[in-house]
């Protein structure tokens, strides 16, 4: 999985491309942790390039989301592909995460 981070408008935008399978979970955790530290716990996760996600990777996003929320920040999801949306819907994680279709909207307070 390829993970790239940039900081914009006071938040980190972390792009995930490829398969968020079990072998990617540790890298996902580290990237989310680093981006939260660097951007005041405001993170937008660009999932437009993610084509697979396993439950342990979902767990990494959930943990980051909870940590950010506790610290007064956020972890938001951006443009998940249809199959990822289906997984989020099946697990009802679309009730936990705010999911956005545009980066502009995701960065608004």
């Amino acid at each position: 999985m390829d993970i790239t981070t940039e900081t914009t408008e006071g938040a980190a935008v972390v792009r995930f491309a490829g398969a968020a399978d079990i072998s990617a979970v540790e890298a996902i955790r580290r990237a989310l942790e680093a981006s939260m530290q660097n951007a005041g716990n405001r993170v937008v996760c660009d999932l437009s390039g993610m084509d697979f996600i396993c439950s342990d990777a979902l767990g990494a996003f959930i943990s980051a989301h909870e940590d950010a929320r506790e610290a007064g920040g956020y972890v938001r999801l951006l443009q998940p592909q249809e199959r990822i949306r289906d997984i989020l819907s099946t697990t009802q994680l679309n009730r936990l995460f705010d999911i956005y279709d545009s980066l502009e909207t995701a960065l608004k307070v």
Partner: protein
Amino acid sequence: MAARRPQYHCLGTRIHMEGRRQVMDIPSSVDEICRVQTAVHEEMKRFGYDDDTCFAVKLAIEESIVNAMKHGNRLDPKLSVHVGYEVDDHRVQVRVRDEGRGFNPDEVPDPTRDENLMKPTGRGIMLMRAYMDHVTYSENGTEVIMVKRKR
């Protein structure tokens, strides 16, 4: 249509046939999961399964093998996960068996309940049941059999 697969050995993985079923015995290492997924995917494509069905099976394989390694075998490198699969024109069947002590899948809490939604674990079996047509556990929980019909 399926040609007979030869027996061969890969690093850490033994692959052999049991009747019509291809069986892979993999050590409890997550790198091996891709090997199983690729093998099953190739078979499914040979039989003309669509991409959505392939995705569903890939996800179920990921979840079931991770469960077998993490919870069944407790990541003991001395223990193996046994994966058997059969692909034909009507359905895919995947069996995953660990060498652990077993568990009761009915005791796994519902991860969609409000109090469980923010927990980082506990969604594997739910995804297996949602994406496969049938998911059945052996009495002691060490083996799961999953079936996906061809669309």
